Structure formats: C-alpha cells, structure tokens
C-alpha cells in the first residue's frame, strides 16, 4: 500500500481578499471531479464529525444552484449556497459562494483540477472581489480590518465547526 497524502493541503493568503487551497490526490481527474460535484459523494466527506450534512443538493450546470446544510451535535444549523457560473468537467467550476450568516458577503469560488502522471491537483480559490463582498471587507478601515474579516470568512468557510464562537 502506498503512503497516503494526509495532512498535505496547503493554505495560502496571496492577498487581502483571496484564500487559496491546494491539495494533490492519487486519483484520476474525472473521479476527483465527481467526488467534488456529486451530492452522493460530497455528503460523505463534506461534514466534520460529529457534525452532519443534513442537505446537499448540486445542480451542476451554468445557472444551476447548490445548497449545503450542516447540523452540529447540539442541533445548530448552518448553510452555504451558490450558483454555478462556469462548469467545465472535469477541469473547472466557478461558482458564487454565500454563507447564510453573511448575506452581503458573496464570494466567487474557482475550483480547478489538473492531472499529471495519475496525480490530480486540486486548487480552490475563494475571492471576495465582487462589490458586495468587497463592501463587507472594507466596511471598517479597509485593510486594517481585513484580517479580522478573513478570520470570520475562514470560520464560516469551515462550516459549523469553524463557526463556533472563540
């Protein structure tokens, strides 16, 4: 058995508004794309135990919507939704990203896959570049507050586990 790649994800903050996550998988690109975009797969890996994924719907076509609802052990619900802007199996999707807790902070998520020698690299970029998101990010003193904002974004990004108050 080959050693696994656990713990090898890289998380970067290339600028004030972007979050970039990179991870390699020993699997063909078509299968990685399926696991990222088919509800029956996403519902298996999306939630961090003991949290559960209560709902996972994905309408994978340009203009189609996705919706994910998580529920924590104490019954708190938390949901994410968005609309696909680009769908190019098996290499790329671009979708809006909206966390229910932040109705005015829409982001654009770009999911990109690349296969080389049987290894598929996943790159996910979350960009808060649209007007609403940018307004949210700059409501306070622009850059001054953006790191705080990014922390909130990352919390919400991680779903229920990440949104617990600290």
């Amino acid at each position, binding site marked *: 058995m080959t050693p*696994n*790649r*656990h*713990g*090898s*994800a890289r*998380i970067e903050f290339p600028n*004030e508004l972007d979050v970039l*996550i990179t*991870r390699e*998988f*020993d*699997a063909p690109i078509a*299968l*990685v794309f399926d*696991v*990222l975009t088919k509800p029956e*797969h996403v519902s*298996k*890996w*999306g939630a*961090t135990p003991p949290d559960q994924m209560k709902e996972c719907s994905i309408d994978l076509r340009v203009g189609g919507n996705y919706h994910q609802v998580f529920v924590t052990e104490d019954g708190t619900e938390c949901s994410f939704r968005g609309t696909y802007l680009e769908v190019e199996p098996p290499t790329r999707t671009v979708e809006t990203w909206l966390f229910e807790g932040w109705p005015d902070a829409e982001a654009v998520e770009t999911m990109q896959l690349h296969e080389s020698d049987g290894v598929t690299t*996943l790159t996910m970029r979350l960009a808060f570049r649209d007007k609403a998101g940018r307004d949210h990010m700059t409501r*306070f*003193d622009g*850059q*001054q*507050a*953006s*790191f*705080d904002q990014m*922390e*909130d974004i*990352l*919390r919400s990004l*991680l779903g229920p*586990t*990440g949104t617990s*108050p*600290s």
Partner: protein
Amino acid sequence: MARSPTTSDVFNAIAEVRRREILDALMTGEKAVGTIAADLSLSQPQVSKHLRVLSEVGLVRCRADGRCRLYRLESARLRPLHEWLSKYEQAWNARLDRMDDLLQELQQQGERSDT
C-alpha cells in the same frame, strides 16, 4: 467574535500590507529605520509610523546604537498567528483527507468490479 478596530493585537497590526513588508525586511536581521525605508522605497516618517504600531504589539523591538535606532523582529510574538493559521490548516486538511479516503475507497471498489 469581532475584535476592536484598534492596532492593539497582532492580527490588526499585520493587516496592513506595508507593515508585513517591514516584518519581511526584518527577517534577515536588525535594521535601522533609514535602511528599511530605502529597502521598501518608503519615507522615513511612514516607516516610523508603522514601526510604532509594530512595537506597540511587541512584534518589533528597538535599541539605540549611538545615534541610530535599530529594530529587530520579535518572532515569538507571531505565535498567535501561527496557532490561528494552523487551526484552519488542520480543519481543511481533515476535510480534504476525508475526500482522499473516499477517492481511494471508490478506486478500490472500481478495481474489484473490473475483475
């Protein structure tokens, strides 16, 4: 969860891109204000202002060497930031590790049904 919009914590202090550049400049060792200003093409008053914020949160320390004030990085003070980042790194890793496990499982199932 929101922190006060002051510069009293490390997170706020490094939210400013110029201040991060100053920290980068100090990675290689102790430097005078003038040297930092020249390295980053900033004015001395600008650099001094940022250094004051960085000093207030303890990210840099200053000592006098004759008439020169030298600044150095207090990297231990970046620890809260490391801890915060590693928490998210762990959570993302856990999520993508589960995805990896599912991929391996699906491939094994595929191999079994092929034979």
